[in-house]
Structures are given as structure tokens and as C-alpha cells.
């Protein structure tokens, strides 16, 4: 009698649905139109990306505001060996970027030539995809703004 221990693959796949609601929906449709939205809290600060409810008071947030398309790198990490499906096929930086007019930062990619050209506090601006569909990847990434331009 054989006593071979068998194994078999188990692949689970299902296409889920998501309803975004009014706030996340506005952020995503804004991206499709080439606009980046944040949302204003009662104390005047702006969350970007926006959230539906205030993280401290739990009050609903409704005042959507457009923020800038350039901002500042708050912190970053160099990705020297990008994998398939990542935002760029050459080495790039993952970074938290605080856009002008926003008080919080969002995670995205910065297309810098090398780690040596990355620094905390550096200025970057959005690079849009030409074909946009209402998805965070409508922002291809961010590119450094040369110091001469920011001066």
C-alpha cells in the first residue's frame, strides 16, 4: 500500500466590488480629471488623500478642497530593484509627499535619477498619465523640481 503524502494547489479567485462613497469617490473622479482633492477638518487643516470621517472627532468631513500638484517629500526610501507592476521600470523612490495646501502626506513614487538626488524636504510635482480612469495610478508618479525652478 502506497503511503505517498499528496499535495494540491488551492487557487481562490473572485472579482469583488467596491462602492467608494461620496468622499473617496470625489478623490478618484478628481484624479480622472487631473485634479487632486483633499478635505478640510474643523480646525482648518486639510487631509490629502481625503477621509470620510475626522480621525480624532469622528465627525463627518464634507468640505472637499483642491490641493496643489506639487509638494514636499516628507520621507523616502530608495527602490533600486523595481519589480513588475511597480510604478516605474527603473530604480525610483517610494516617498511620502505632502502636497501644497495639504497637512498630511500620501505615499507615491518619485522618479529621481538616483538615490543621491533624493532628500527630505525636496520639491516634487505630479506626473499624470495621459489616459486616466479614476484610480490612484492615474498619477504615474512625481518628479523632482529642479532647484533653479524652485529658487
Amino acid at each position: 500500500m502506497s503511503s505517498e503524502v499528496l499535495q494540491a494547489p488551492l487557487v481562490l479567485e473572485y472579482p469583488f466590488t467596491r462602492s467608494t462613497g461620496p468622499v473617496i469617490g470625489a478623490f478618484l473622479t478628481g484624479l480622472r480629471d487631473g485634479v487632486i482633492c483633499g478635505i478640510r477638518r474643523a480646525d482648518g487643516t486639510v487631509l490629502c488623500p481625503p477621509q470620510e470621517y475626522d480621525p480624532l472627532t469622528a465627525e463627518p468631513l464634507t468640505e472637499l478642497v483642491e490641493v496643489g500638484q506639487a509638494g514636499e517629500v516628507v520621507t523616502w526610501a530608495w527602490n533600486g530593484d523595481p519589480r513588475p507592476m511597480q510604478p516605474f521600470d527603473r530604480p525610483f523612490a517610494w516617498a511620502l509627499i505632502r502636497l501644497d495646501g495639504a497637512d498630511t502626506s500620501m505615499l507615491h513614487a518619485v522618479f529621481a535619477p538616483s538615490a543621491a538626488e533624493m532628500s527630505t524636504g525636496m520639491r516634487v510635482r505630479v506626473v499624470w498619465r495621459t489616459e486616466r480612469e479614476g484610480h490612484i495610478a492615474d498619477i504615474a508618479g512625481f518628479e523632482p523640481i529642479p532647484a533653479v525652478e524652485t529658487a
Partner: protein
Amino acid sequence: MGAERTAVIGVGQTKYAAARRDVSIAGLLREAAYRALEMAERTWSDVDAVIIGKAPDFFEGVMMPEVYLAEALGAVGKPIMRVHTAGSVGGSTACVAASMVQSRVHRCVLTIGWEKQSESNAMWALSLPQPFATSVNAGAGGYFSPIIRRYMMMTGAPELIGCMVAHKDRRQALLNPYAHLHQHDLTFEQVVDSPMLWDPIRYSETCPSSDGACAMVLVDEASGDAHDGPVAWVHGTAMRSESNNYGGRNMVSPAASEQCADDVFAQAGIVDRRAEIDAVEMYVPFSWYEPMWLESLGFASVGEGWRMVESGATALDGGDLPVNCSGGVLSSNPIGASGMIRFAEAALQVMGAAGDRQVDGARRAMGHAYGGGAQYFAMWIVGSGKP
């Protein structure tokens, strides 16, 4: 020192519907939570902890959704606890919430159960193929239909008892503005003539697939005493579980069900269950589970449950033990909320706040939930007076 007496002072529900595409998951929960706080005359800052339940994560494909939902539920910086017990989870979640007050860990707890079936697929989730095993791919109905046949065989129940339950619950749902199904013109004949899905379960004897959330606010005795609005006092809570595949298991009336019922009725000091309970909100996703649970819960002896249904004893209109005045799971099924809806509707009955579906003078009511392969059970008894 005994347990802290615990009061329900707020209930909030969404209008149950096939698809709430206008709101995110967070937005859906928020509606129910806000309405519960409003009825309780409380604000987010009054809440000490949030106890949340839903069916398994792979239904919507969001892992640990309670983490993402903390902000929508005002739980940032506060304890939030997730409960997992499959379809009974709404009931178990309410039991856990009550225990937080009974044990004096917290004085004011927000509890909520939810499901957004429009973003998920329960039939798929309940029919996962497994290596080396045959997949019957039959969902919950395929699992329960042979158990129902067994009940019918044991008790000699006539074929159309299930249709009577379904017709009653769908009629009663018309009195509940939150019910998903409002089938104004549904006749008994239409229920009987609806397609047979899993013999003996017809289409109209099954629950719908709903989006929805149900929330409650539970507080300690002093807060319950001080509350101006209606109050339901918790008289007993019980939970039991068993494996769904051990040899010799009574699948019609599981031991865990009977023991859970014995425990909760003993806590409430109830001897004659049928006489002393004024309304029951029972988890009946397939019509035949009403007579089956009537017997398992001790409201009827074996073989008498279907006779109660046949005689009209469980109807809001004229029955002595109205069951599912809200329309029940047969009229609304946001899975992870369905158990909590049963518990909340029981509370509304003893608060006298059940609107058109109110049982006149209801003093004590039972909320009941089951889940998995009829293997997880949660029950509570609430009263208009203190325990």
C-alpha cells in the same frame, strides 16, 4: 457582587437593501451607529468601547475591516473588538458587548454588526472548492435542505408549513420600514408556486442578499436609570458552539442550541418559555427553521413546532408567541448584522418602540441567532423591567 445590570438605550438600523452603492462600507456602518447614538441621546465621546461583528472577511475581501472602520465609528484611541462567529456573529457581538458592561469594564458600549453583500458573494464564499474533496457547490440551502427533510420525516410535518412561515414573515415585513423585502401583493399561492431551489426549500422560502448595518448602545444600571427614553434591560445572554461534523450529532436540534437555550432561560428565571416570552426574533434564513427552532428552544415539544405555525400561534396578528414581527432574516439578510437585528428588534419590542410591528404590552422578548452549519448559537432575553 453580581454582574452589573445592563440596559439597551439605543438601536439604529439602515434601510436594508440589495445594494447600497451610494455609500462606502464605512458610510453604511456610520448610518446605523449614528442612529443608535441619536436614540440613546449620546455622542461619540460618550462611548467607551466599540464591539463589532461581521461574517468572515473573505465575503467582502477586506481583511480586518474593523481597523479601517475605527475612524467612522469614533473608536480612535478607544478599545475596539471584533467578534467572529459566522452567521450568528451579530448575536454573539451583542453578547460580548453586554459582557463588557456586566463585568464593569466599560459603562457605555457601542456595538454594531454589518454586511455589504453587494460588494461580496456569500454563495461563492460558502462553496469554496477544497483539494481532494467533492464540491457540492450548493451554498447554505444545499447544506440545510436534508436537515429540514429529516425534521419533516421525524415529525410528520405537512409539506407547506415552510410556505406558511415564509408568507407570514413577508407579510410582517410590510410593517417594518427597515425590511429589505416589501412584497405588498405576495400571496400564499405565489410562495407555494415559487421555484424549488433545494428540495424542500422554495425560492420564496429563502432569505434575500442584503446590504445593511445594525447598532446598539448598551450602558450600565445608573445610566439606564437616568435615561429619559425607552430602555430594554438585559435578563440573560448565552453562547454555545459545536463542531458541525462529529458522529452522532443531532443536526435538527443541535446540543449546543438546546444547552444555550437552557442557559439563557435559566438566567432570566423563565420556567414556562411559551407563556413567559411575549415576542421572539429568531434566526430563520430558510422558512422551516421556525418550527425547528421553536422545538429546539423549548417553546414547543418535539413535533409540536409545526403545529404552532399551522395554528397561527407565531403570527403577530393573533398569535400568542409572535415570531419575527420584523419580517426576520427571510425579509432582510445583511449576514453579519442579521443576528444583531434579531437582538435589537427584541429590545425594541420591550421598549415599546417597535412601531407598527409592536406586540402589544411586550414585557420580555428573546433575540436568537445561529451560524455556520447550525453550530454557533447566541441568544439573549431582554425585558421592560430590571432583571
